[in-house]
């Protein structure tokens, strides 16, 4: 096998791998990425409710409560214009606070309650999930540093 042929065979294997990877990526991107919605986006854009969504905003003051089973937590995510009720079965992150930013991921269940299986709260005073920060800035609720 000459040097040229050898090089060609490796390039072909490489291209085949890249094509496989591209196919995997494209199919995965259509199935498994999750779009972010603020409570107002949900009202305006009306996403299909059976898909997995990420919803974020501020945790409404005084909205955190336990469901009758004693372990499912409910709270309201708001951007002050609109609200969404979220239920989450589990232990909330330590920095989850009423009146502060939160991002949740899950699906809508029966009765219009968003059933989250993941709750991300900010980790320190200087951090707010970027998409939450931007949607809050848009609705004029929060005036953090530009671009943060």
């Amino acid at each position, binding site marked *: 096998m000459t040097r040229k042929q050898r090089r060609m065979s490796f390039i072909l294997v490489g291209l085949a791998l890249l094509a496989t990877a591209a196919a995997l990526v494209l199919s995965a991107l259509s199935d498994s990425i*999750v779009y972010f919605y603020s409570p107002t986006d949900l009202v305006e854009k009306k996403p299909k409710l059976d898909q997995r969504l990420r919803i974020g905003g501020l945790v409404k003051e005084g909205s955190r409560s336990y469901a009758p089973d004693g372990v499912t937590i409910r709270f309201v995510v708001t951007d002050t214009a609109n609200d969404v009720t979220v239920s989450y079965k589990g232990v909330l992150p330590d920095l989850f606070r009423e009146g502060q930013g939160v991002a949740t991921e899950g699906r809508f269940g029966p009765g219009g309650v968003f059933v989250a299986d993941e709750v991300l709260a900010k980790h320190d005073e200087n951090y707010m999930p970027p998409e939450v920060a931007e949607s809050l800035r848009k609705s004029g609720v929060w005036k953090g540093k530009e671009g943060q």
Partner: protein
Amino acid sequence: MIAEAGQFALILAFVIALVQGTIPLAGAAKNNSRLMALAGTSAAVQFLCVLASFGCLMHAFIVSDFSVSNVAQNSHTLKPMLYKISGVWGNHEGSMLLWVTILALFGMAVAAFGNNLPDSLRARVLAIQGLIGAAFIAFILFTSNPFLRLDPAPLQGNGLNPILQDPGLAFHPPFLYLGYVGFSMAFSFAVAALIEGRVDPAWARWVRPWTLAAWCALTAGIALGSWWAYYELGWGGWWFWDPVENASFIPWLVGTALLHSAIVVEKRDALKSWTILLAILAFSMSLLGTFLVRSGVLTSVHAFATDPERGVFILALFLAVTGGALTLYAIRAPSLKGGGLFAPISREGALVLNNLLLTTGAAVVLLGTLYPLILDAVGGGKVSVGAPFFNATFVPLMVPALLACTVGAMLSWKRADLAGVLGRLKAAALAALFVVLLIVWRKGTGDVLAALALGVAAWLIVGSAVEIAERIALFRGPLTQSLSRAAGLPRAAWGMAVAHGALGILVIGITASSAWRVEMIQLMKPGETVSAGGYTLTFSGAVPIKGPNYEGIQGQFTVTRDGNEVTVLRPEKRRYPAEGDSTTEAGILTTIGGDLYAVLGDPSENEAWSTRIYFNPLVAWIWAGALFMALGGMISLTDRRLRVGAPKRASKHAVASAE
């Protein structure tokens, strides 16, 4: 005063790094040995200056000098000493100073051990290191000065985020940085070689130990981080495919590819320009990772104190370093002469396949990590890309890599007998088949993917054992002969077998803990019990506790197995008054068979508490596997062939068995 000294030392280091980055380059171009000799001296002095600066910052933290703004914002007098020290790099400014300190340490190591390098190569490598150092010191001085004073000084500091008050902070970032920054060595050697226009096996013998050392540190750093994220609640478990986690994983993947391709350069004098490209990419990905972590452009559960302005500086640095190196590569790489020929079925061919799969995997992870940014930039909306994406793309790419790993390790150089090697791997294939059938029989066909994954693990582990057994001719002669052969086997062979086998351990841990995890959430009153993983947990209530700088509530679960008490798990909810934050600490019983993991939730009526109990089967194997991989790397590092500066000398026997 000491803070000013620290800043002064850093400015001095900046100036010296500039000298180190320019004059030796000119010296190498003019073949002036006096100018080139400046490289070593300045690298040593630069390291001492940066170290002094780092020491000054550490001093400020230890004595709680709150007139230094950084200390006031991130420390507190009541904080335990371990966290005062690790708090130095628990913030952005300090962690960048640690970054630069490690960079300077590597530079000095080349200066100290590089006496047998050609003068011009040594001068150029140190100069590139100096330029990188100068850029990062400038970054610290101009955007993130850790020595800024506060006037008037506050009486007390704000304290460190309690989540970071953990032994994990003391070890995870330094190891990670040793890895990230260690790849700067491969980068500097690559750029120096491009300037020289020459890459030879001697060059690879130099690059490989540095890459290997950096890779070991990065592997250990990622493993420690993964373990920390596992026991710390709210970080998504041992691996979350979070952007910050991916930021460390991409350089690891590229670094692993580099590690393997450098072997081909060293042994066969082939794949040179590809190896150079990987060396450039490995460090570029480290810089990109630093940018992603520091800028906060992506939503992460691990984001701390991010600042977009600083992000822009690092992005510019990344573009300059990567762009410059790739331009140089484009100009010079075609002139690098290719070396030994080889057939597709050969050790070289297998290593090429390894490289293609690893780099494609790295590209997929990179794409998934950056996709939200790309889509947002073109106005496609806000998205998040999580585990489902990576499981669907990355895992299918790694399966062939794992399967080929065992075969490739046994192929001979140049041209190999695939059928013969597969025949010798019969034992590994049978073991894999046995494991798959056993799991399907015990767990049913619903777990067939997990069964196949465990089969792959058996293939890796038994395959590595077969590889060693073949080399020492076990069972084919007297045992004493095999033992003496084992002693004579190059350390690199042992290292490879250990690392490849460890990969199997890692796969077992990942598979079992993902497929057969048990999770229970319930309200428990004192005296009530739950069972998980063969253990019975009895809740005996919650009591108040008091720590050095926190107070809290501790739940108590008595764990029994077959009626015998095993231990008492004490998950806690802590409140740190200085920082005004609370944390939840899990109670964990770690065994080889699996982890029992208890979390105390919130109180309910009648002394009942919401509790979460998990059983994570074989989860500790994940970190054991990763650490054994790092151990394999270290064993390989002790190979006399790679010993930096050692003359190439080995007994005839060792040479024969190394081939």
